[in-house]
Structures are given as structure tokens and as C-alpha cells.
């Protein structure tokens, strides 16, 4: 099936996504959007990068086209390709070309997962030219006024081999997102998971405790997304300890020693039953 090679998921959003700004990131983003400057979002996994872009797209009233970067992605997956229809070949725009034509926000998630020679196709769109050369058609697609390029990556867990090309990086304004402060994160967890503030606060305390462990041997720390998952389990009627075990402790490590140690930490921090 040809659909196997359709890159990522292109989706539209109608209801306002919940995003709670932590600092001035929304202002910076809006300013960049007014100028059409491309934006690079950095931050650990599960801290709300994707949600932030969704909220911003809704706020600006533009369509959002999301593509997740992966190793097999070719530039044709972004720009477009000829497909066979009946006995003719028909050009089909890729998501990037479509976004450029329609003036949508193009969000390339986990950009370093894609090969570097693929990501260079965004260069002409990311600087003053604001156009996309489509060599197979022999044409150049100028970006419509509303077009905005957003890429994201996680500087933490990617290996040294996978890094952003310097020439790519320098075309973007960079916004660093991190896990929100405890008060805001509590609010977010409570809202997203549908649980009361006290439970959310306990979860956030645990998440903070795990994040601040120094040299714990964990590759990733407990993300906001993870805490929301745990909260969701609580909302479904599981006990807090069980929910934390399933959504946080077991999810963070496969190492039996670390799982036990995290369990001890969770036992200590969660309220005694």
C-alpha cells in the first residue's frame, strides 16, 4: 500500500488545546510568527513541546501540519512525489509543500531523528528566501504569508551521532522548554488527568524528587506526560501507589535494582495508607 510511506500524521485541531504558559514563551512564539521566523523548540521528552505548538497554532488560527522525523524519511516524504493514477503520473504535494502553499504551521517533531541530508530541504524555507524549490517539478514554491516552520528536538537523550547540523540550527530562533515549576505542573496534571489538586501535588512532588536525583543511573526522568498518565490511572480508580508503579516506576527502568530503589522512593513520598 502506498499509504505506508505517507510521512507522519497530518492533523487539524478544532478545540483549544490546554497549554499553561510558564514564562514568556508564548510571547516569543507569537512575535516570531508575526515575522515568520522559524522556531526551534528544545526540551526533554514529555515536557509539552508538541502541546505548546498545538496551542499556538490554535491561538494564531492557522492549520498545523505535524510530521515526526524518522531515520527513513527522504526529502520526497517532505516535498512530495509523483504517484501513479491510472496510466498517468500525478504530482502529490508533500506535507512541507502543502504547508508552504497554504500558509500553515509546519511542525517537524524530533528533527534529529531524520537524516541530516533530509533536513537540509527546509533550509530555503528557514531563511530570508522563504521558498521551497521543488526540483522534480522544476519550480519554486514561495511560502504563503502565514507559513511558519517549527522544529523540535530533545538535546538530552540523543546520541552524539545525532545532532543538529550547525547550518540548520543557526537559521532558527530557539526556545528552551523545561518541565514547569511545581505549582504550574500541579495545575497541568490536575487538569489533564482530571484529578484533584492534592493528588496532583503528590505526583508532582514525586516527579520532582526523581528529576533531582543526581547520578541515579536513569536515562530519562519522570516527565509531565508520565505524571499525567499516572494521574489518569488514579482517575480511573487505581490506588495512587499502583498507578505510580505502573506509569512511573516500571516505565522508567527495566533494571530490577532501579525499579526497587524507585519503589522505595515512591513509598516514602506518597502518603501512607
Amino acid at each position, binding site marked *: 500500500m502506498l499509504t505506508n510511506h505517507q510521512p507522519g500524521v497530518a492533523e487539524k485541531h478544532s478545540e483549544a488545546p490546554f497549554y499553561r504558559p510558564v514564562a514568556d514563551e508564548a510571547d516569543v512564539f507569537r512575535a516570531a510568527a508575526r515575522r515568520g521566523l522559524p522556531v526551534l523548540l528544545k526540551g526533554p521528552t514529555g515536557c509539552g513541546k508538541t502541546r505548546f505548538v498545538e496551542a499556538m497554532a490554535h491561538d494564531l488560527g492557522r492549520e498545523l501540519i505535524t510530521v515526526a522525523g524518522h531515520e527513513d524519511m527522504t526529502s*520526497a516524504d517532505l516535498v512530495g512525489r509523483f504517484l*501513479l493514477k491510472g496510466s498517468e*503520473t500525478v504530482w502529490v504535494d508533500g506535507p512541507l509543500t502543502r504547508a508552504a502553499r497554504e500558509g500553515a504551521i509546519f511542525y517537524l517533531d524530533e528533527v534529529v531523528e531524520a537524516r541530516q541530508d533530509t533536513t537540509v530541504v527546509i533550509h530555503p524555507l528557514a531563511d530570508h528566501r522563504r521558498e521551497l524549490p521543488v526540483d522534480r517539478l522544476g519550480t519554486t514554491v514561495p511560502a504563503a504569508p502565514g507559513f511558519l516552520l517549527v522544529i523540535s528536538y530533545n538535546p538530552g537523550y540523543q546520541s552524539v551521532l545525532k545532532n543538529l547540523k550547525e547550518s540548520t540550527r543557526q537559521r532558527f530562533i530557539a526556545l528552551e522548554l523545561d518541565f514547569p515549576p511545581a505549582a504550574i505542573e500541579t495545575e497541568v496534571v490536575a487538569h489533564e488527568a482530571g484529578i484533584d489538586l492534592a493528588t496532583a501535588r503528590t505526583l508532582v512532588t514525586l516527579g520532582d524528587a526523581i528529576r533531582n536525583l543526581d547520578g541515579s543511573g536513569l536515562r530519562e526522568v519522570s516527565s509531565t506526560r508520565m505524571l499525567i498518565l499516572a494521574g489518569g490511572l488514579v482517575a480511573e480508580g487505581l490506588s495512587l501507589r499502583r498507578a505510580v508503579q505502573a506509569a512511573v516506576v516500571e516505565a522508567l527502568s527495566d533494571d530490577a535494582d532501579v525499579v526497587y530503589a524507585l*519503589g522505595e*522512593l515512591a*513509598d*516514602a*513520598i506518597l*502518603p*501512607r495508607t
Partner: protein
Amino acid sequence: MTTGAERFRLLAMFVANRAVEIAETRPGEPSYTNGEVIFVASGRSADEQRREVLLQSALLGGGSLDPRVTASLRARPRLTRRYLSLEGRRVLAELADRLPLAAALRPDDQPATMTAGESLEKARGRTKVEEAPEWFGVIRPSRLLPTTSAEHGASPTRRDLHTQIDQLEAADDEDEDDEDGRPSERSKILKLFESPVSAVESLADYFRKLLGSARSPGNEDVGGHLQVRAGRRARAVGSNARPLPTRIRFTDDASPGAAVGVAGALFPEWDVHNNRYRPDWCRVVDFDLTDAADVSTGGVIHDDVLRRRLSRIGLGPKTLRRRPDGDDLDIEALIDLFVDLRSGHSPAEHVYSERRQLERNLGVLILLDASGSATDTDADGLAVHEHQRRAAATMVVTLEELGDRVAFYAFRSHGRHSVQLPAIKTFGQRFGALGRARLNQLQPSGYTRLGAGIRGAGEILKAQAGTPNRLLVVLSDGFPYDDGYEGRYAEADTHKALEELRTDGVACLCLSIGAATDTEALERVFGSAGHASAPNLAVLSPHMDELFLGALGELAAPQALTSQAAPARAAR
């Protein structure tokens, strides 16, 4: 199942707010901490150990073991006990607000003090202080390690990140009292550039170099790393410098030696008695075995266990495009095909893409000991050489099937002027029936100058493997021995040769198969991780992946591809 107290590590790290380890005390001793390790009483139940860990880490996190306080506790056991009792209650009460576990475990009474200083005052006084419960353990002021905030574990404070003027001035005073040698002359302005933040360090380095005030050798920072590299040609090198091998040029009447597969070099040898290299000492020659061999005798035992084990090493997924068949359509190729068809061409219909685990990046050279000592026979009448030969053939076949770059050389020596490395299979050749027959005809003779053999094989591996991960597997039965090459000298030279290879990014593994003689010398030379011995290969096969990975793991990281030989795998 986690045995012992290690499971409380993360809890302790959280409470103490720094990196700590957990260990058990000797039986009968109470729990205590030295600031980096929390010792819990051994043989207690998990509940008891948990509260001991909690108290000791709370003391660390609550600032009770601050050096300023504990200094006055030294050699005053009664005061220390009173202080512990007060402080233990205080830190647990403080912790109880944010840690339900502490609330559940702490004694019921209210703490009598609010700060560590107040506790110390009160402990010094004459008021009655309740005895500490037994699980409070003890404070051992003398065991507490002097920790500075800059040490690992503690999070950096503002002061650490600040340019360290005050601390350097203190160090300066020490320099002046320093009696051995002159203190290094560094201007104070330069010190302003010093900061523990690594990004600034290079700048400081730069300025120091620029202004010509290098560090004095004794003043290396902890963990300082001095690189010895020279970009300039030196007139005379120190005796410790490793001489490079000198190439030997062979010429036949018509063609140079390289054309018929003969190459060689004069290699240095390490002289342990004089602690220096002997340059151009051993003549090592490698050549293709070209005897006409009886093909019918070649047979190789297949070892499925070995194959399974080795197949796990060094594998990465790789997408193959434009394949004649596969599990997915390669749309690019499909479109191109149709475009071509429409315009009148009819190319081959390679329109599928395949994703297979065959990105191998391991190059192995198997070096087989073909010296005379290998003719010893075992109880079944099979010579050691026979065992090794079979094992080597099996490994070569297995690795080749798996798609690794593999070469197979034998080695033997007759004194230092004739170290031979006959090639049974070079990296470029296939290990066909002819190769196998040649292997079977290989007659053991001569002696074992192991160091020279390893150096020669290492050169071949470095030049021809063309892979980032390179491994030298030596199949040998034991003691290195040759004319003027035995005992400590031989061991030291072999050890040195292995060291050189590891420095150059080549891993080494030694297998002794079928050897009845003791292989202690080899184990000493290769290290216990790099050596394994067994009566036959089948015994080792289940552990072969561990052995390979162990040897490769000794290298810090795979080296960059430096070889001129491109991997001949692009076509596959």
C-alpha cells in the same frame, strides 16, 4: 531481587540531596555515614534498614554533619550522642512535612531545637537530653570525609560557577610555603580566567599558552589530563617512544611483492630488562599460502550456538532500497520504473525495499598459533593444533556468514629474523574449499614469538579491515617462546604489543582451545577478561558474545574509520 540495602539508594539520594551510596556495616556495628556512603547495620530487616537510611541521609541533607559542627564533636562521645539525639529528632521533624515516611517513622515527641547550631549548644549544656533510639546509629566525626561543594554529587552553587578568585588566592599561599621546587609562576590576571566551568577552561588554557606560563607538572588539577602529542619531528626520541614498523620491499624478478600478496615489516620489540624498545628487531612477513591443496579434505563443523551468539554483536538495522523483492514497496524506485516504462525503457523491476539487520561493523582477524608446541596431543590423540584449527575454521565460517569482515592468518617464528604470517584467508578473499584445504595442510613448526605476531596482525587489521570495530582473536596454546624470547621478557613484550593495539583502537581476545598445558602465562598477559580456555570450541560458544563484547568494551569507543580499504559490502 535486590539483595541488601542497595535498594534504598535513590531514597537516600533524595533525602540527602546529593549522590550517596549504600553499604552494610560489619556485623554488630551501628549505622553511620561518612558523607559519601551510608553504612546501615547488616543483617537487619528491610524496615529497620529503611529507617536507618532515612535518618542518616536526613542528617546529611539537614546539614547536621556540616564540618564546622562536627569538628567540635571529635573525640567527645558523650557530646556526640546528645547531639545526635537532638539532631535526629530535628531533621526528621523537618522532613516530615514533605515526606510521609519520615512522619510515620519519627519519634512522637517534638524536637527541642530548630537548627544544628542550637542543637550543638544544647548538647553542650546540662539539660537532660533523651537518649537516641538505637536505630539512630552513630555519628563518626573522624570518618566524615572532607567534602567541598565542588565535588561530584553536590549541585554546583553560585560560588562554584563564579570565577574563583578567593580560592585561588588561598592556593597561592600554599604555593609559597611549598618547599619542593619553585611554585609555578602564574600571574594573578591569568587566574581570573580560570573557572571550573569547562567552557571557560579552554579559554584559560589558551591564555596560559599564549602568555607562556604553562602549568607546572605537579599542579595538575584533579582528573587533569595531560596529552602527549607532538606535531613536530624530534631529533631524538625517548627510549619509551614506540618505533614505527619499517616496511620491507620485496621484489620478484618481474613484479613487486605486493602484487603476489607478500608484505612485511621490521617491527620493534619491547625490552623489559632495559625498559626500552628495540627498533627494527623482528622481521615479520605475511604472505598468501599458495600451495596446491587437496580440496576434498576440507570440511568445517558448523556451530549453531556460536552463530546465534555472534550474530548479536555489532548489528544495526539497514534499509535496502531497490531490491528485487522485499516486504515493502520502494515508491521512489516504483515511480522511476514507471517513468522509465512510459518513456520506452524497460529496466529491471527492482521496486521493493527491505529492512534487515545486517549493518555489521566488526572486523575480525583470527591469528592461529601454528608453532611446533601445538603438536602436543590430548587424551583422544587429537593434536592441540587440530583443535585450534577446527575452532578457527568454525569461527571464520560463522563470522563470514554473518557478514563480518574476517581474515585468517597463522603465525610461527624461527628466531627474530623470520616471523611468518601465512594468510589462509585475507580480508578480501572468501573462505572457500581451497582455503579450508590449505588450512588442513598447514603443518605446525617453529616457535611462538607472540609479540611480533600480534604487532604484524594488528597492522594488517588496521590497514585492511575498514570497520570501526576491530578485534584480534589469538588462538594459542600457551607460552610464548622463541630464540631469546621467553619468560618475563616474552610476557612483557606481548603485553606491550597488546597495549599498543588497544591504544590504536583494536580489541584483543585470546582463546586457548584444547590446550592441556597451563595457560596461566596467557591469562596474565591478556588479562582474565581477554582470555578464555576450554577443551573445545563448543564449550566456549555459548559465551562467545560476552567474550567478544568484553574485549571490544575495553576500548573506550570505536575508532573512526581510518583505513584506506573501503568495506566491500556496498553491493550486498
